């Protein structure tokens, strides 16, 4: 039974994506939404199985390594699968009404979205380094195609930049896989974990370095973030939400998995190594937040906020000797995923309603679109890290872990980062809530938008703000099967 669950999580999106492609441009929503509901059910069943019997592994088709493909699911991967499906379902309902109004943008959304989700689910379930490479490329290529699907030359330029960055990242990852295979004759993570020790030969250190750099490029960690804002800010709203909430988390998950799994021997012996991603993460928080505060267009503001929020994920690396840091990282991934999806969806509504995307043009939005501005505000609460949101819990756990290990600098970065986040969130809210529109003649006109769009954004925003109350269950799930 549990075998079927894991395999179907990969097969199901592949099937509906292929059917959506065959059905023709713009079609497939009616198939995708029930299928996504089914996927959510499968993940919940899988979570139940994992919490009962611990981490599971299976050989697809009974072949087994080295020629066959092994899948594995533990608490960490089930948590990421859960995040993916929980965001994908409301996003699909949103996308359906979004693209009904503005059809040409969404011609290839459904097939590409399905392939992207299949790649993500496959990535979270993979048990060997090479399979991870293939799924990583699947995710990257589908994401690039989604950015380009809008069709303007601006989007094409962003997509090409994204493509070259992602190919460079996965290229270094592939070379690292080759070096690991040369050194140990296997790519299975479970087999590699005990044999890679601090006395490993130089090629293994080189491989680890290549993987670290490659995955940092793909996660858009400062200073490799150059491709992210134009790609995420330029795409249509459902695509931006999908990319910012889910795609960048995949390479972060992989980095975390490698750090704690196969390369644990190396990372434990070089204690200072964790400060490299953490320092870059701190710089990302400052740089991303400052750019977000300065941004003129609302979607660029949100995209730069993604650069900043990704920085928090990397602050946990020097602290990973304690379990609390891992929990903080996963909680931040959930908080940012839910809140950022909600924020891009709300921005999509605002852009559709006002017909333009400048922050300055939002005056009066709260009167016309109260639900949407409320959703944006709730998501902002999570990003800023106010209680009881998931963002608060993530920052609390992170500060606790940092102080527990005497890393005061990380605690300070987290606190200052929260203030900076408040800066860019309130820029939007101030425009939306406080400024009364001028005389009727030159007041911005608001087009009516489908209610579904507003409600879906609010749903995810509320989930991000209220997850803090149910954080214990999630943390119990992550601890299952021990990622370390």
């Amino acid at each position, binding site marked *: 039974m549990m075998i079927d669950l894991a395999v179907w999580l990969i097969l199901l999106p592949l099937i509906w994506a292929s059917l959506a492609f065959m059905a023709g441009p713009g079609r497939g929503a009616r198939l995708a939404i029930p299928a996504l509901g089914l996927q959510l059910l499968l993940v919940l069943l899988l979570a139940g199985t994992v919490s009962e019997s611990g981490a599971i592994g299976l050989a697809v088709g009974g072949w087994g390594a080295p*020629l066959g493909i092994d899948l594995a699911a533990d608490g960490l991967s089930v948590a990421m699968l859960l995040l993916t499906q929980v965001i994908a379902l409301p996003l699909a309902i949103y996308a359906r009404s979004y693209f009904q109004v503005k059809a040409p943008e969404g011609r290839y959304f459904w097939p590409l979205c399905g392939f992207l989700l299949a790649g993500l689910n496959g990535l979270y379930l993979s048990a060997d380094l090479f399979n991870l490479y293939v799924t990583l490329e699947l995710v990257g290529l589908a994401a690039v195609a989604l950015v380009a699907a809008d*069709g303007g030359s601006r989007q094409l330029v962003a997509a090409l930049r994204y493509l070259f960055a992602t190919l460079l990242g996965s*290229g270094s990852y592939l070379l690292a896989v080759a070096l690991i295979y040369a050194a140990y*004759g296997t790519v299975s993570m479970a087999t590699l974990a005990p044999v890679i020790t601090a006395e490993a030969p130089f090629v293994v250190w080189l491989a680890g370095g290549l993987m670290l750099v490659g995955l940092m490029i793909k996660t858009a960690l400062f200073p490799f973030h150059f491709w992210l804002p*134009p790609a995420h800010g330029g795409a249509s709203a459902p695509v931006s939400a999908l990319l910012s909430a889910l795609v960048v988390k995949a390479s972060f998950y992989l980095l975390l998995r490698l750090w704690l799994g196969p390369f644990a021997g190396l990372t434990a012996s070089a204690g200072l190594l964790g400060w490299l991603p953490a320092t870059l993460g701190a710089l990302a928080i400052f740089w991303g937040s400052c750019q977000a505060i300065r941004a003129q267009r609302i979607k660029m503001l949100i995209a730069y906020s993604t650069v900043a929020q990704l920085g928090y994920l990397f602050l946990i690396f020097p602290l990973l000797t304690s379990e609390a840091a891992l929990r903080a990282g996963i909680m931040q991934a959930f908080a940012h995923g839910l809140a950022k999806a909600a924020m891009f969806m709300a921005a999509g509504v605002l852009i559709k309603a006002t017909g333009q995307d400048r922050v300055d043009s939002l005056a009066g939005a709260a009167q016309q679109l109260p639900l949407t501005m409320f959703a944006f505000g709730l998501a902002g609460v999570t990003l800023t890290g106010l209680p009881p949101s998931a963002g608060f819990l993530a920052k609390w756990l992170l500060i606790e872990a940092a102080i527990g290990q005497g890393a005061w600098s990380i605690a300070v970065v987290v606190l200052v980062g929260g203030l900076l986040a408040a800066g860019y969130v309130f820029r939007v809210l101030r425009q939306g809530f406080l400024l009364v529109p001028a005389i009727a003649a030159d007041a911005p006109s608001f087009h009516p938008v489908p209610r579904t769009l507003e409600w879906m954004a609010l749903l995810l925003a509320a989930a991000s703000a209220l997850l803090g109350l149910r954080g214990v269950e999630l943390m119990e799930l992550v601890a299952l099967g021990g990622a370390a």
Partner: protein
Amino acid sequence: MTSGLLFACVGAGLFVMGGSGVLLLKHLLRRILAFNLMGSGAFLVLVGMAQRHGIADPVTQAMVLTGIVVAVAATALALALVRHLYRLSGKLELPEAADDD
């Protein structure tokens, strides 16, 4: 120097050349070619270093075949994007500065 190590060294050289090409070149077609060179370099390392006593390892062969499929797909996507960009803007280069705003 065994033949396997020779393959691996050539592969590493190709990878570095290709990688710097992807980073530094301006012309988009040349960047796509550079990416392919980079991929071929990684494949050579994979095939070359996994040889034990001159006997080829079937697992790496399977991996390289999969890798080639992925590289072809990526190249096709890149070419399609470049062609579309050329049709829209008449240029085969990306604009200098990323427009931040």
